[in-house]
């Protein structure tokens, strides 16, 4: 059904860059979003740990 | 009401004295000169684009002194007083935009046909340029004032205001440009002009509220 040999038709050369650009955009968004989410979550955990350490020090 | 008129006189005087028309028209002239320098002096190249160039020049020149509209009062603390005063902040914003229009937009509207003819544009474009200039620059002042109010707390001023405001001004730019183009081409221009006026009316109705909200935000 998918006739890849014929997609290199007269204008087929435009199809791949378009899909490629779309893929790049989507992947970039996904990677950036996940990196941000994980990074800030780790930061929150780190700060919380620090804070409990300080507070437990103060309590003693 | 007398307070409003006094305030209006003050605003117009301030805008006029701090450069106002000279600044706007000066920049407009300099910009107009750039076109033959860039495109070549042949009338065949310049004449077809002349009215459009005048229109673009008018748009960009009206954006010039926008950032100072509120910053001066913000820095001097006058904006605090205005916000607390008896005059509604919406009216204050409206007056400021009108003052900008009177000192900047109106002179530019009179300069635009001169530029168009100087570049070889058809004389039939002259009157339409003035009309679209007057109505359009009112819209530019109102929407531009909104941008200026939003950008008060930023230190970026002019270019940021222009960047924020220009996409919003797409409709009046299109309507005015179409009216001018069609009058030159002999096509019916009524719809375009009507749409431009409708946009200006809507801006007149809506912008003061956005401006007031933006000012209150900066003062908070």
């Amino acid at each position, binding site marked *: 059904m998918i006739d890849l040999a014929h997609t290199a038709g007269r204008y087929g050369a435009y199809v791949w860059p378009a899909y490629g650009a779309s893929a790049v955009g989507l992947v970039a968004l996904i990677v950036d979003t996940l990196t941000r989410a994980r990074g800030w979550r780790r930061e929150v955990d780190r*700060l*919380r740990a620090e804070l409990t350490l300080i507070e437990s020090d103060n309590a003693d | 009401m007398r307070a409003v008129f006094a305030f209006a006189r003050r605003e117009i005087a301030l805008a006029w004295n701090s450069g106002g028309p000279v600044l706007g028209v000066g920049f407009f002239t300099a910009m107009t000169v750039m076109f033959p320098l860039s495109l070549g002096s042949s009338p065949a190249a310049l004449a077809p684009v002349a009215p459009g160039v005048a229109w673009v020049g008018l748009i960009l020149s009206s954006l010039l002194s926008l950032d100072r509209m509120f910053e001066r009062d913000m820095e001097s603390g006058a904006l605090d007083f205005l916000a607390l005063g008896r005059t509604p902040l919406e009216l204050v914003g409206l007056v400021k935009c009108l003052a900008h229009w009177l000192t900047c937009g109106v002179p530019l509207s009179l300069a635009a046909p001169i530029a168009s003819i100087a570049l070889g544009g058809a004389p039939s474009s002259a009157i339409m340029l003035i009309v679209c200039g007057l109505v359009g620059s009112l819209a530019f002042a109102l929407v531009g004032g909104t941008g200026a109010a939003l950008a008060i707390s930023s230190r970026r001023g002019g270019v940021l205001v222009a960047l924020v405001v220009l996409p919003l001004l797409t409709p009046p730019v299109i309507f005015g440009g179409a009216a001018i183009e069609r009058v030159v081409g002999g096509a019916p221009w009524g719809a375009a002009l009507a749409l431009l006026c409708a946009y200006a009316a809507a801006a007149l109705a809506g912008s003061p509220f956005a401006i007031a909200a933006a000012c209150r935000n900066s003062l908070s």
Partner: protein
Amino acid sequence: MLTRLANPLRFMAFSRWAGPLFSAAAAVLIAAGLWFGFSAPPDYQQGETVRIMFVHVPAAWVALTAYAALGGASFVSLVFRHALADIAARAVAPIGAIFTLMALVTGSFWGRPMWGAWWVWGDARLVSMLVLFLLFVGYLALRASIEDETKAARAAEILAIVGLINLPVIKFSVEWWNTLHQGESLLRKGGPLVASVYLTPLFLMGGGYMAIFAALWLARTRAEVWRRRALTLRDRGAA
């Protein structure tokens, strides 16, 4: 349901499973869309390039939806003072900007073989997309240029609402101005102008793009919630 989600804790709990769910749905829909898209016969006029429609139109749909979401979240934040609404607005802006850019780039690739130029000003849709991109850029620039985060948020909210109100006017004005595009070929009164064999992949990709937009928006909002928590904790630690 939206008011239930306004509670940050409930939102975090919700997005924890909703995000991956939307991602999975997106993967399935896009895979199906690609399959149908490449197995459909080439258009008798456009040849193979008609397949670009399957990435261009969904991107444009998401771009518009993202701006509507930006305006809506900004409105809720301004009127109801929900912190989560502002967080959601901040999160959606860059996503919308990228999808608009994707729509522009793919539109360019679609237009070149069709009209012979990389960019055609006579295409109302493309020009509207460009203005939409500028609206996103203006929003991001305004927000970034104000140091005080609360003030920046509020100013950006006002801008987003003003922009959303203006958007139909802008679209109308650009379309009124000129058009080479097929017009609203999908939703015309006489039925869709797009051949039905292309509608299936188009709607599949459309659904997939919407699902991935939802997933991205949820994930980015989560990231933003954590960011604010981190900043609050930092302030507390410094005190």
